[in-house]
């Protein structure tokens, strides 16, 4: 078992999930509560990674963050090193790649909240931030949990973006899915079995946790 890759993968997934939670809750609230016609563009952007091949996304990010663009050169000058082929670069790529897996469940959860409750909060003087924290988020807690677990698992299993943007640098960008790919390429099926088993176990445990939470909270409607 490549423990270094396992811990790097878990670290990447944890950081990505934390960032996504901070991003997806306000984005979801904006999409549900907002009225601007431009929100359709934001919704499309947030959903784009669902349909875009990971390698395409990885390629665009590689170019954008690399020395070929002004933005990439500015980032390199600011940070002192290029973002591509670094752990930080992987985090950026993972956040974008897993964005829809955080935003979509949260939007679905917020949309399911009775609009009369939002009106009631508004009438009582609550502004958008308070409505999100005191009404939408508590009532959509199961959707938020689903967003957290899906984002985490999606990042754990990420391959195309990681390979394009991060390469295969041990301790920096070599995640479990890269290790699995290498093991299969080397015909080391016993090791590949163990790695795949860890990925499968993680997914099963996390998904079971979501469903168990839903049931302990009074059935499937929470």
């Amino acid at each position, binding site marked *: 078992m490549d423990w270094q890759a396992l811990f790097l993968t878990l670290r990447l997934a944890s950081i990505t999930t934390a960032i996504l939670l901070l991003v997806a809750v306000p984005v979801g609230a904006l999409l549900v509560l907002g009225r601007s016609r431009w929100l359709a563009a934001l919704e499309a952007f947030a959903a784009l990674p669902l349909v875009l091949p990971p390698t395409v996304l990885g390629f665009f990010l590689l170019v954008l963050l690399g020395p070929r663009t002004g933005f990439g050169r500015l980032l390199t000058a600011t940070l002192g090193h290029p973002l591509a082929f670094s752990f930080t670069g992987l985090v950026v790529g993972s956040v974008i790649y897993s964005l829809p897996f955080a935003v979509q469940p949260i939007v679905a959860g917020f949309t399911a909240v009775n609009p009369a*409750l939002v009106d*009631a909060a*508004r*009438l009582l003087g*609550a502004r958008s931030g308070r409505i999100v924290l005191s009404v939408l988020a508590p009532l959509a807690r199961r959707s938020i949990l689903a967003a957290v677990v899906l984002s985490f698992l999606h990042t754990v299993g990420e391959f195309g973006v990681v390979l394009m943007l991060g390469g295969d640098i041990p301790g920096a960008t070599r995640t479990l899915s890269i290790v699995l790919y290498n093991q299969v390429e080397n015909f080391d099926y016993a090791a590949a079995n163990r790695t795949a088993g860890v990925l499968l176990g993680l997914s099963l445990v996390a998904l079971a946790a979501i469903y168990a939470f839903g049931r302990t909270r009074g059935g499937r409607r929470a």
Partner: protein
Amino acid sequence: MLEIAFDARRGSFHLQLECRFTTAWTVIFGPSGAGKSTLLRLLAGLDRDCVHTARVLYDGRLLSDSVSGIWLAPGRRATALVAQQPALFPHLSVRANVAYGLAHLDRAARTARVDEMLTLVGARDLAGRRPQHLSGGEAQRVALARALAPAPRLLLLDEPFSALDGTAADALLERLQSWLREHSVQTLQATHDATDAFITGAEVALLREGRLSAQGPAAEVLTAERARLTRHLNAI
């Protein structure tokens, strides 16, 4: 005094009226679909999207004015709306629901205000309960307490006592009217039940298909309804 001018559309429904309400309690009377709820929601600052032109002046303060682009947010109008559906926050206790609009008060003042409001509506003993454990009538009482807690200057009631039995509704209405008079809160009550208009002795604004068709004392405006109610009572 409340001065209103609205031109609003929602789907095929068109609300167009211009009027002035000067009495402490006004009943907006009309059949279902006449635009009573739409009118109250617009006055509360909701549903701005369906407004074409609007002007709302309450005691000299502009709440809405499409000419100058003024549309005060719902929570900044000192206006409370109590609808037929109580819409209590299901994850909060009755006490927390009533306290929701009192975030600006310190804890002691908030607790005192919540107790005062729950006592007014006869729901003091429900403070620790969750909305799921309330009957329809209890939930409507709590919704009324929650709306009154932030001390609104204008109260909009959209058939808020529909789940209360007649005696309980009459008793609550009497207490409420007294409290509102004491605190100088002007009230608009939407209803399709003529008895509400006769019980409150209020001025009546008759709404039909989004237009104001009559305004004045209940005995004058609702003569047909009064005759119908008398006929029913005589038949018993």
